[in-house]
Structures are given as structure tokens and as C-alpha cells.
């Protein structure tokens, strides 16, 4: 430079000695926010996490991320009521991401590919009893086994699966899928003893030499109500009906069937009746549709299959071939009260689906285990009053879905493990939620009107044995790629590309970025243009800065 004219001609790039970071009053910081789907998932899945892998077609990695929390994706992909999709931010853009469909795709792919679950940790020498082989039991067994404990499942029935087998009809959950995912868990070396009802938990623990137990018994006892009925009247219990669909000779229901109740089980019963040849399947419910406990999707599908709903009605009596119905009306508190008007319905049989109870007799000899209102009292970590004894699923109430059972099982298993190791349960702090407004959705391609119907179509195609079909690989990929990655950087390079001061440093694929506070002037463009809300401004700390 010496020969260059003084001051008139300058050295290239010499402004690097001018640290403009001192201009800053606010500084951008990278953060992770909780995506609504993960937040809402009862099974505690890292949905965004496994979608991230699915987006790039890394399906096995996606599946492995998934089963870290839930060993039953193929099942979950069929029976879950998808709270994740209800809260999906994408729904405000065009259509919620078909998370459940992708989960099922991954689950089925894993079965087809014969992917096996991760190897258990070295044996801890601890023996754990799991009561019940339903979703809660299986999930608990899986997590405990992975943590190195030896696990034995005691199942009262002669076949594995609990309510997944005896409560959920085949058309919603084909048994080969159930068997495949159960087998995969058992392959980890989980002991399964069938026809082993546990009637006295304390004794079973003692005699079996178990260090603890996770009780995951399902709600298998149908509720009853007193209805005046002729002896000739044919009245069955929905739970039994669905149970009897497995294996032994199914009962004959006749052509005209009335189902009493408004829960998912009522829908299952009605739709099962349809499949058993009933021409009329009428659901009688004492309140209105919006108060029906059954999930909307179940009601829709039942209606599509020709199931008729009778709202604001109670059955006052049952005779051979007919039932008498009394019309109800809602009082100002929304409680149904009789109107006195009666109506007759032809019915060859009446199925009662008025809810289920859990048989908690096994705790009768455990004074320190509180049983109230048909459920076991547990702490936040799902441990009962008896140290080392946990309860999950139907037994602790909650929404009594497969998904929450699986989620509780995971939490119980981890809590149990921590207890055994004498470590406190590490409570990983939850990130703040990533609401829709925190996103800059410009950067996501929109789904034009014409393709939106296709989204739905791709997710459900009616077949005889299974209502919903699976996604083709292309559709699954497409669906996965619709994820907005809410609250978590997916390395779109916007911050790196749009900083007027080149103050964002790209650390390389997978390593995200770093702000160069020597030069960042704190304009906040990176925050404004981050598609997924993974950067935030915070007040400059006087001590630091460029």
C-alpha cells in the first residue's frame, strides 16, 4: 500500500478494525421453543424431531427418534386421536401436518423392514413386575428393559395386548400390526406370563421377588344401569361384545341394534354391529352431540358408515324387539332432564356402552395405596403411596387413551429407574411454547387450494378391514416436509444471508450459527426473518458487546 496515494486509496477490507458491535442496545440470541405438537403429545413424543429426519427421507433415523419415546408407532399411527394435529401451527396456514399418518407410515415401514428396537442397557439386576400387557404395560416394560432392568409382565387374559386387542375393533387396529409391535418389545427379553391375573399385588411382589411394579390394568369392566327389561329382552355389554369379537364365537345381535351411550366404545359397538350384519345401528345418547365424550373423528366415521344418532334420549324400558325411549331436554345448566314424551324403537338387541371401570382389587391389601373414585391416587411421577409401585393408564384415570397410557408408562418407567438408582428425577425444563405469531410464515411454501383436498385424501382411503389406508412414501415425505419446525432452527440461512453487517457466522451443516457480536449492530432483521422463531432480541448487557 505504501506507494498508494495516502488516504485517497485504502486497503481492501480494512474496515474489519471498526467494531460496530458497540452500536448495539439489543442483541439477538438463538433459542429453542417448544413446538405445539410436542407440547400436546400425551406420549411425550419429539414429533418435530422425528419429522426432521423424515423430511430428508431418513426414515429409520426418524423411526428411532420416535421409538425413543413410544415403542408402538404403527399402533399409535392408527388409534391416536392426534392432539398434536389439533394444535399444529400449520393449520393456521393451510392444513395441519398429517403427523399421525407419517407416524403410521414409519411404524409400518419399520415392521416391513424388520427394524428392531435399541439394545437394552447392561443388566441392573433389578426385577420389575408389570401388571397388564396393554399399551401402558408394554410401554412400561419396554422403557424399563431398555434401562437394563429385567421385566416380567403378568397378563390376566390368555392373549397379549389388553384393551388394544379386546377394546379396539380390528377395523381400527389390524391384529397383525398389534402382534408385530408387541413381538418387537418381547424380543428385548421382556417376560410375558399370560393367564396370570394379579389379585393381590403385595403378595405377587413378595413371592415373585420383584423390586417394584408398574400397574397398567385397563378399564375392562362395563358400567351398568338399571333399566326395566323383559326377560326376553336381549341386552349386552359393549366391553364384552368387543372382547368376544376376539376368537370365540361372536354373539348374534340381530338386524336392528340399539347402542346406549356416547363414548368411543359406543361408536365401536355400533360400527361393530354394522359389520356383523345389522341393518340399523342406532346410538341413543342423553345429551347433545357437542357433549358426546366420543372423539369427533369416531362420530364422523360412524355416521359415514350409516350409524344413526339419537340425541337427548334415554332408554326407559326394553322389551323383546323394541325399546322405549324418553326424550330429554337440557336445563339452563346444560343438564338433561326428562320431558315425559316417549317413543318406541324397534331393536333386536340393546348394547350398553355407558363407560368402563378398572378392577383395582389388587391393591386391596395395600393400605398405603389410595384408591378413590375407581382410580389409584398417584404423585406427579405416577408413583402410588407404596414406594416402588407405580400406576399408569386407565388405572389412574386421565383420558384413558392408548396415547396417554404410553406417555405415562414412559414417565413412570423413568421415575422408577431414577428411584432405583437413588437419583432425583431430572426435571428437564420445558422450553417456552412456539406460538403461530412467533413464526415468519412467508418462507414456507403455501399449499394452493387445489391440493388441500388431496392432503386429506392421501390420509384416508376406505377399505373393508381397515378404515384408513397408509401413505405412499411420496405422500409421507411430502407430509413430513410440511412441518414448519416451529421454534427450532432448521438452518434455512436467512439470518446468515440477511444480516446487513455480515455479523452472523455459519458454523456448518448441523451446527447452526453464531452471532458475531463484534459487528452485530442489533438491527433485529435476523429475528424478524427467522421463519421458525428461533431467534429473539434481549437487552444488551452493559458489560458485554463488541
Amino acid at each position, binding site marked *: 500500500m505504501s506507494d498508494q496515494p495516502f488516504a*485517497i486509496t485504502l486497503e481492501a477490507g480494512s474496515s474489519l478494525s471498526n467494531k460496530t458491535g458497540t452500536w448495539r442496545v439489543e442483541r439477538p440470541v438463538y433459542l429453542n421453543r417448544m413446538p405445539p405438537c410436542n407440547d400436546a403429545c400425551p406420549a411425550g413424543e419429539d414429533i418435530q424431531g422425528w419429522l426432521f429426519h423424515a423430511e430428508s427421507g431418513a426414515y429409520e433415523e426418524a423411526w428411532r427418534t420416535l421409538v425413543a419415546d413410544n415403542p408402538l408407532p404403527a399402533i399409535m399411527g392408527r388409534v391416536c386421536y392426534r392432539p398434536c394435529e389439533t394444535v399444529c401451527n400449520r393449520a393456521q396456514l393451510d392444513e395441519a401436518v398429517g403427523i399421525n399418518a407419517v407416524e403410521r407410515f414409519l411404524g409400518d415401514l419399520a415392521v416391513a423392514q424388520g427394524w428392531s428396537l435399541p439394545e437394552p442397557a447392561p443388566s441392573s439386576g433389578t426385577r420389575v413386575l408389570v401388571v397388564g400387557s396393554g399399551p401402558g404395560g408394554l410401554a412400561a416394560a419396554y422403557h424399563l428393559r431398555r434401562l437394563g432392568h429385567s421385566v416380567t409382565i403378568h397378563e390376566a387374559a390368555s392373549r397379549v395386548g389388553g384393551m388394544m386387542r379386546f377394546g379396539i375393533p380390528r377395523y381400527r387396529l389390524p391384529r397383525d400390526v398389534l402382534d408385530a409391535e408387541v413381538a418387537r418389545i418381547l424380543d428385548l427379553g421382556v417376560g410375558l406370563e399370560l393367564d396370570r391375573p394379579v389379585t393381590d399385588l403385595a403378595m405377587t411382589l413378595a413371592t415373585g421377588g420383584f423390586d417394584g411394579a408398574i400397574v397398567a390394568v385397563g378399564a375392562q369392566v362395563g358400567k351398568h344401569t338399571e333399566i326395566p327389561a323383559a326377560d326376553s329382552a336381549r341386552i349386552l355389554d359393549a366391553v364384552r361384545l368387543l372382547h368376544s369379537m376376539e376368537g370365540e364365537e361372536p354373539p348374534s345381535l340381530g338386524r336392528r341394534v340399539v347402542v346406549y351411550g356416547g363414548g368411543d366404545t359406543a361408536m365401536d359397538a355400533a360400527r361393530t354391529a354394522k359389520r356383523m350384519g345389522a341393518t340399523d345401528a342406532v346410538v341413543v345418547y342423553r345429551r347433545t352431540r357437542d357433549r358426546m365424550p366420543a372423539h369427533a373423528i369416531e362420530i364422523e366415521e360412524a355416521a359415514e358408515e350409516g350409524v344413526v344418532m339419537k340425541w337427548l334420549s334415554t332408554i326407559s324400558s326394553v322389551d323383546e324387539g323394541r325399546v322405549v325411549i324418553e326424550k330429554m331436554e337440557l336445563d339452563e345448566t346444560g343438564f338433561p332432564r326428562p320431558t315425559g314424551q316417549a317413543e318406541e324403537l324397534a331393536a333386536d338387541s340393546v348394547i350398553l356402552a355407558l363407560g368402563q371401570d378398572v378392577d383395582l382389587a389388587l391393591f386391596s391389601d395395600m393400605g398405603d395405596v389410595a384408591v378413590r373414585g375407581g382410580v389409584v391416587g398417584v404423585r406427579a411421577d405416577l408413583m402410588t403411596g407404596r414406594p416402588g409401585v407405580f400406576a399408569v393408564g386407565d388405572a389412574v384415570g386421565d383420558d384413558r387413551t392408548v396415547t396417554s397410557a404410553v406417555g405415562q408408562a414412559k414417565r413412570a418407567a423413568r421415575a422408577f429407574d431414577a428411584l432405583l438408582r437413588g437419583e432425583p428425577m431430572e426435571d428437564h425444563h420445558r422450553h417456552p411454547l412456539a406460538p403461530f405469531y412467533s413464526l415468519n410464515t412467508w418462507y414456507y411454501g403455501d399449499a394452493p387450494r387445489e391440493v388441500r383436498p388431496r392432503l386429506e385424501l392421501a390420509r384416508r382411503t376406505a377399505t373393508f378391514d381397515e378404515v384408513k389406508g397408509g401413505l405412499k412414501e411420496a405422500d409421507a415425505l411430502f407430509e413430513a416436509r410440511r412441518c414448519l419446525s416451529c421454534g427450532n432452527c432448521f438452518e434455512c440461512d436467512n439470518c446468515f444471508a440477511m444480516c446487513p453487517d455480515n455479523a452472523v457466522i455459519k458454523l456448518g451443516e448441523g451446527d447452526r450459527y453464531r452471532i458475531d457480536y463484534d459487528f452485530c449492530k442489533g438491527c433485529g432483521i435476523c429475528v424478524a426473518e427467522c421463519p421458525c422463531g428461533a431467534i429473539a432480541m434481549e437487552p444488551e448487557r452493559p458489560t458485554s458487546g463488541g
Partner: protein
Amino acid sequence: MLRQIEGSRAVAEAVAACRPGVVCAYPITPQTHIVEAIGAMTKSGQLTGCRFVNVESEFAAISVAMGASAVGTRAYTATASQGLLFMLEAVYNAGGLGLPIVMTVANRAIGAPINIWNDHSDAMAARDAGWIQLFAENNQQATDLHIQAFRLAEEVSLPVMVCMDGFVLTHAVERVDVPSQDEVDAFLPPFTPRQVLDPHLPTSIGALVGPEAFEEVRYLAHARHLHALNTIERIGVEYAEVMHRPFCGLVSPYHSGDAELVVVALGSVLGAVKDVVDELRSGGAKVGVVGITAFRPFPLEALHRAVGNASQVVVIDRALSAGLGGILSSDVAMALDRRTSIATVIAGLGGRAITEHSIESVLRDALVGRLEPLRFLDLDHAKVQQELAHLENEGCSLPTPDTGLGATGLTKLVGRVGT
């Protein structure tokens, strides 16, 4: 080769022989013949490796030359009068950036009133632009100065303006020895720029410079000009040898060594003055003349030496600084001892002929101490008196410029020369 040739043509051929890479110009009288000729040479193929750019204004002409120079290509342009003023902002810029452009200024008056004829107002308006300014006395010199100008500009990294009187020289057909290509090649090496825009060595040319360094930048520009004084002489000597010419340096003295009265002037008027000097000397008067070739940088020492012991200096100024008087004479005054008196003769404005007769009468007046400090040569006094009188009736009384200035300190400088 000796030829009877128009000044513009001779200059065009000299410039072409310097192998410029980019020549750009906008038409303005009386510079047109030069660039027309160069344009023709590029089209005919006589001048290869050169692009002639027809630009949309003088402002663009100088700017194109700057761009070309900044990437290391020899650039040339020519202009005059309003054209020079229209490009003046960029002229200063080229001076400040030190881009070694060579530009011919076919000196012409500046309007209003519009006037296409010769004087030095244009060059004087650009005298502080940081350019080297050389003035040609005749077409031989104009030709030679252009060739030296490229060498000079590139050696000292400053743009050079070669001034030749419009029409008087540009359109005069005279005997000129136009150097051959070989002779020019032997004298002028290829252009190696001091600073250049190059993707391999990126630099930033043309920074914003604040108060903390601006004065230093200007100081260095001044130093560069002072340094150029020596370079001009050195190159002059070398050129004289290579081309077998009489040496022409910063100034050209003629009978000034023993003169008591020395005339100082720029450009083509010098010829007539020399004739007059011979005339007066034949009558025994000790008069001489010093022509200034390098007006910027101004050769204070060389001029001082050339003027020698003259007791009186008469400066013929071909431009007027209204409200002051002579421009050249103000500079000349700086080169003189206190005891040397100085008078300014404003002459040849807007093409007004400067005849030997008029020059002679001025000098005779000076010799007998009858020359005012400021005289307008061949001024139509009747006309201006009438106009002044008219103004006086309007209520504003004005002193007549020449006598008016007589009241100032300049009179004290006027001494009588021995008679």
C-alpha cells in the same frame, strides 16, 4: 519529419504516436480538429489498440478517461472553454486522485457573453484543480509538449493539461517537425500506473477523507507538484536530446539575462513579443521576454532566475480576474524581488488581436514609466467611458478599471526605468 501542417493535426499525430488506449471527447470549438483527426486514425486503422469513445458531454469525456486510466490504460481527451468548465468537477477529481490523464485545452474565452475566440480564461479557471498545466508558444511546442506530457503525467502520477491557444495555434498551418513513431517509442515507455483497479489486488480508490487527514492529502499534492518541477526540466532535457530540439523547460527566456524590462507571458503571444523585443533592442532598449511553459506547478525559482536583475516586469495576461485584474501577474509577483516593479497588461480577451504595434507601444510606455499598473490593451475607451457615464447618470459612479486600480498599492511598485 518536417511538414507544413495544421496545429490540430500535428497534435493529433503526436498524441496518436503516444499510443493512447482510450480517447474520448465531446465536440467544442476550437478543439474539434484534434479529436476528429484521432477519431479518423482509429477508424482507418492507422492508430491501433485504441478506442475512440463518442461521449455525451465533456463531463463524461473526462470521466471515461478517468475510468480508463484507473485500470492502467493511457487515456487522452481534449476540450475548451465551457467544455472545460462543464467537466471541472471531474477535472478536480482526476487531479485529486492523481490519474495521469493528458488533456488538450484549446484555450477559448468563457461566456457570458458567449465567445468562441481565444483567451486563457478556461485554463485559469482550472488552475487550482491539481493538474499540471503546460502552455505552448507555437505548434512545434504544442506537438512536443503533448509527447512529454504523457511521460510526465505517468512519472509523477498527475494529470497534465496542455494548453494551446484556440484558433491561433489549433487552426494555424505551420512548419512542424512531427516525431516519428520510433522516436516517440524511444522516448515514452509503456504506462505503468501507480494505482490500478485489479481483481487480483483489490484496493478502494477514492475514499472519504475527513478533517483528520485532508490537509495532509493536500500538502502531499503540493509536494508532488513541486517535485514535478524537476521532472519537467529533466524530461525536457531528455526530449531535446532524443528529438534533436532546442531545450524547452519550465520557462523560455529570450534576451532576459541583461534586460531591464522583462515581458512575461503565456502561449502564442510570445512570438509577437519576441519580434517586438528584437525591434526595441535594435533601438538600444534593454528588453527581454520570459515565456512560461509550466504554469502549474508554477516555476517561482526558474522565473526569478530568468527575470534576473530586471527592474520592471510587464505581464501580458490573456485572462481577467474581475475585481482583481491579472491572474498570471499575481503569480509572477510572487517570483519577483520587492524592488522589481510589475505591471499587468490585459490583452487578447475573447480573440481580440494582439498586434506587434500595440505590444511595442506598451513597452515604449513602460520604458518611460508611463505604463499603468493595469492596462487593457487596445481598449475602446470611448465606448467604455460612454457606458460608465451612462451608469453614472443612473446614480452609480464607477472608477474606470485601469485608473481605478491605480489607487491601489500596485502603483508604488511602478518605478521609472532609466531614461
